[in-house]
């Protein structure tokens, strides 16, 4: 009885985790050579360290608006950083001329269109927004 309760609780817990992680997914164009990425590579791409595809082309990260819920959840879930930390990170690079933050797209439709049309681009969005021309990336 007790072990059943524990198992049930564990199931509940894992369901909860899956749901929150599934909130925002990482996507590429369906023409992208990227099947899977490590979390470290994803973090590198979004922190301004160039991640190269097997072809030698750099992976092009795209951002949602800073004020969007997806932005906050993406950086907190996948990079473990708050928007304030991300801002501080970029102010270290901008004021040295060493880099600029990923281009920020106006809204999720524009982002989806841009990614679908750009094989080396990567982005993120709510799972239910993933439409034609996009593919969810498996994170290792």
């Amino acid at each position, binding site marked *: 009885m007790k072990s059943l309760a524990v198992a049930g609780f564990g199931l509940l817990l894992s369901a909860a985790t899956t749901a929150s992680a599934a909130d925002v997914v990482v996507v590429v164009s369906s023409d992208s050579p990227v099947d899977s990425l490590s979390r470290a590579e994803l973090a590198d791409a979004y922190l301004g360290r160039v991640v190269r595809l097997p072809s030698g082309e750099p992976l092009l990260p795209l*951002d949602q608006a800073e004020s969007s819920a997806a932005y906050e959840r993406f950086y907190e879930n996948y990079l473990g950083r708050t*928007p304030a930390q991300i801002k*501080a990170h970029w102010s270290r690079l*901008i004021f040295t001329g060493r880099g600029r933050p990923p281009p920020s797209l106006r809204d999720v439709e524009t982002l989806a269109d841009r990614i679908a049309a750009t094989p080396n681009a990567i982005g993120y969005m709510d799972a239910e927004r993933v439409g034609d021309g996009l593919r969810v990336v498996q994170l290792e």
Partner: protein
Amino acid sequence: MAAATMTTTLQVAVGLCCAAVAWMPEAAAEPTLSFDGFGTVGVVHSNEDRADFVSNVFAPDGAGHTRDLSPEVDSRLGLQLGSEFTPRLSGIVQVVVEQRYDDTYKPTLEWANIRFDATPRLTLRAGRMVLPIFLASEYRKVSFANPWVRPPPEVYQTVPATNFDGIAASYRRRLGSYDNHLQLVYGGKDTSTPGGGEIETRNGFTIANTIERGAGTLFASYSRTHITADGFAPLFDAFRSFGPEGEAIANRYDADDTPLNILSAGARYDPGDWFAMGEFALRESRTFIADFRGWYVTGGYRLGAVTPYLTLARVWVASNTSDPGLSNPEAQGFNAALNDLLGSAARQKSIALGARWDFAPSMALKLQLDYLDLDSDSSGVLVNPQPGFRRGGSATLVSLALDFVF
């Protein structure tokens, strides 16, 4: 990160540029201009009213004696204009307004350089640019990018120069999950001091390497330059006039194209919820300029938008802080001047407790308490000592700063 809030990117596509593009096969369709800014509005109070606390050793006065509540110590505004002429050729100009050596606020040109990306890994720059001596050198003035109100003086004041005029090469290489950044710079710099003097560095060579992997960063640099401090030449000429004994003293302490070496190493680990960082610096020259050793460690924990932090720091001097001077009674005044110079080197321990509050997307408010424990017979990092000031005591500072970027 919304480009609209962080920067204003103007697309410049005038006919002139298009004409230039026509014969530059690699040029992008349109050169871009970017405009960014940073700043701090801060006040500092010191309980020691017979000396001043300054954040830049070349500032003539600060908090304590000159002002009970000084806005001059940390306040600053920086504006940066960047332009990408072609995908491989870009330029950057940064102007900073802050308290200067002459107590004015005339804008100073912090950076003005042209950058050429020879290959995706190799970048060449020429002009005025950052001197990469410390872990946070590149953004030591961008307080928003740093946890503290100001970089710990025990390390950062050992090299007050932030830029130089010359050339630089930077090589970035990714090795597995490691990101390596090697920088070589060559050049010099003239720095004006409050007394009306000038400190010149020439033939300065710096090699710096940064390794990043995930949340970790390791930094090390070595710098060798030749330093001349004209303002003190009359003092050493006076010593020389006393014959061989005086010449020996002058040769030991004069800074006349004399080599100066700096070695520094630092590390940072920032997995997200907390961070820790520390640096060690060593400066050496056979001049009156002290052979400093300094270190600090800082740690902080992020509780939502508030980050409390603690810094411990120490600076001491490996060279002599006094000299018997000449036995000739007529040289007593010169002996005293020399000993003043040697004894003024900063020696202290400090502890700083603070909190940073990221209350808006591009703004942070910081409150910091510093307790400076001055070594015996030292003024520590305090300057401008007044009659009645006791060396070897202590001082408590309270600082409030609002940092912003745009």
